[in-house]
């Protein structure tokens, strides 16, 4: 923040590289991995807004993703609404769900672990519901037809999805940068640091937290549409998977909560670790064991994540110079 000029140059260079990457990368596999990195970073950023900036950890972040995925998919398969419009319905439904969950939980003063667990319960509730009612396809799930085209947000090559994920990522970074520079962002951080003090100083803490979870919800909703159009199949266990809830908080905590680039850095590092681990051993579970250890180590020794590591050394350097 203190070096806006230099960091702006970094951002511009990074964006340029990302935009040109498909021309330099010939391997479809590598492009797919990058897409996945961006996608997870995007979801991580949605978690970061409520968890990292506002300090309200959720264990059920996947609920917005799943609801968005069902929204645009059902609109497409039952009403023929093209996903390029459906994605906005998904965003709307995600935000609406955020409003409901946020209002109910924050209204009754749920904080800390209780809030984390109640979001998990909401995600489970939605999974069971999606499994039991007919219009979601129940346990069988929903198959979408393959009909590539921009209006369907489907693409013939990985490059298309790569750019789609890049756009999502850039939007999420823009939201985070806006938070860093706006009153709303400052108020969220104040809530994270001390809710009573924030309230005393005129911050409408209930409203701010609800807005934050609505932004998270809207972002998650769009991610659901992305996923459904990329894989053309969703079912309740995928749409409301605990693993995805964990992944969004994991990348953010590893990279650095409450920072603009934390989720991206965390996503990059964890996916790289995962790919390397997969290269050597293909037994399931191993990379997740490593993730578990990383989570514990970061929480215990590096509460500001990898970004914090970088910042600390920079601060020490400043002190040495002085």
């Amino acid at each position, binding site marked *: 923040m203190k070096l806006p000029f230099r960091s702006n140059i970094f951002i511009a260079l990074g964006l340029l590289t990302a935009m040109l990457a498909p021309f330099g990368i010939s391997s479809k596999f590598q492009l797919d991995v990058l897409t996945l990195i961006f996608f997870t970073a995007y979801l991580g950023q949605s978690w970061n807004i409520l968890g990292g900036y506002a300090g309200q950890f959720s264990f059920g972040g996947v609920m917005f993703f799943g609801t968005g995925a069902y929204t645009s998919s059902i609109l497409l398969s039952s009403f023929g609404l093209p996903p390029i419009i459906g994605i906005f319905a998904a965003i709307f439904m995600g935000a609406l769900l955020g409003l409901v969950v946020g209002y109910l939980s924050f*209204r009754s003063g749920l904080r800390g672990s209780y809030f984390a667990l109640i979001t998990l319960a909401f995600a489970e*509730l939605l999974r*069971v519901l999606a499994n*039991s009612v007919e219009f979601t396809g129940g*346990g069988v799930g929903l198959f979408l037809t393959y009909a590539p085209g921009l209006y369907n947000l489907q693409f013939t090559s990985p490059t298309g999805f790569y750019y789609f994920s890049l756009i999502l990522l850039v939007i999420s970074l823009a939201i985070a940068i806006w938070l860093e520079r706006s009153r709303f962002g400052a108020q969220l951080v104040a809530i994270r640091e001390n809710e009573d003090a924030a309230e005393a100083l005129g911050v409408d803490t209930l409203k701010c937290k609800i807005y934050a979870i609505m932004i998270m919800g809207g972002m998650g909703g769009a991610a659901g549409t992305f996923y459904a159009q990329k894989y053309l199949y969703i079912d309740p266990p995928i749409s409301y998977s605990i693993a995805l809830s964990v992944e969004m908080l994991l990348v953010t905590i590893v990279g650095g909560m409450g920072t603009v680039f934390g989720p991206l850095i965390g996503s990059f590092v964890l996916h790289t670790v995962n790919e390397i681990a997969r290269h050597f051993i293909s037994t399931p579970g191993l990379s*997740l064991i490593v993730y*578990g250890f990383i989570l514990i180590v970061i*929480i215990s020794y590096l*509460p500001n994540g990898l970004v914090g590591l970088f910042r600390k050394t920079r601060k020490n350097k400043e002190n040495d110079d002085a």
Partner: protein
Amino acid sequence: MLSITLSLLPAGIINGLMFGAIYALVALGLTLIYGVLHIINFAHGAMLMLALYSAYFLFKVLNIDPYVSILIVTPASYVFGYTIYRWGIGKLSGGRDQNILLITLGLSIILENSALFFFTGDQQTISLPYSYESFDLGFLYLSYPKLISFVASLIICVLLWMLMTLTDLGKAIRAVAKEREGARLVGIDVEHVFAVTFGIGVACLGAAGCMLLPIFYVDPYTGNIFVIIAFTIVVLGGMGSIVGALLGGFIIGVTESVGGLLLGESLGQIGISLIFILILIFKPTGIFGSKV
């Protein structure tokens, strides 16, 4: 159709009570740890899964009946719990409850995926010589394993209650739960008591695992099923309340079984998360909100 369902109701209730007793045992471990240490152990389900696997391998490899394994797995779980708190969670916890939640989340990821790595994702069940023998209640045949599990769970709950109310250890634990600084001042080794409590909480899971195995199955994700159930029971019974956990266990057991009967197996599961959400929102202190 409705009359058929209604005629099944008594059976559903009895079945629910049977499972409810084991749920209560699982929840008891969780509520005890919360009541004394004020931490939420998210790895509770994963630790139960570990106990189930222990009982499973004791049966498969050494041919030890799971109900006999209680005598092995329970103390082993205690040691595991004591160790992992004293030299793990206790050391790493920086104070914020969310951090502990995340650390135990990390632990559950490690345990779950280690199980996946070593034992594969297949569901395992066992069958005992008396698995299919049953007790005739007139309207219902109650299988022996269910009956034994029910009675044994109740006995363990009572033993735990006696431990907490009648022994010096119980007194020390309650002292620490109430006033940890005061307890420290009168010379109680608080860290030790914390670890003991955590150990007892995990020991409950050891016993529960042995009793669950003959009437359920085990796979690396079994724990997930029980996490929400246990948390629901604990918030229902009031965080830290032993009696509450017992009553909550029965309520949830019956709700699940009757709910499944009336709404169908799939939708019936809604009951638990719904109860959890409603209680947290409207009565976060629980229905029977007394403390340990």
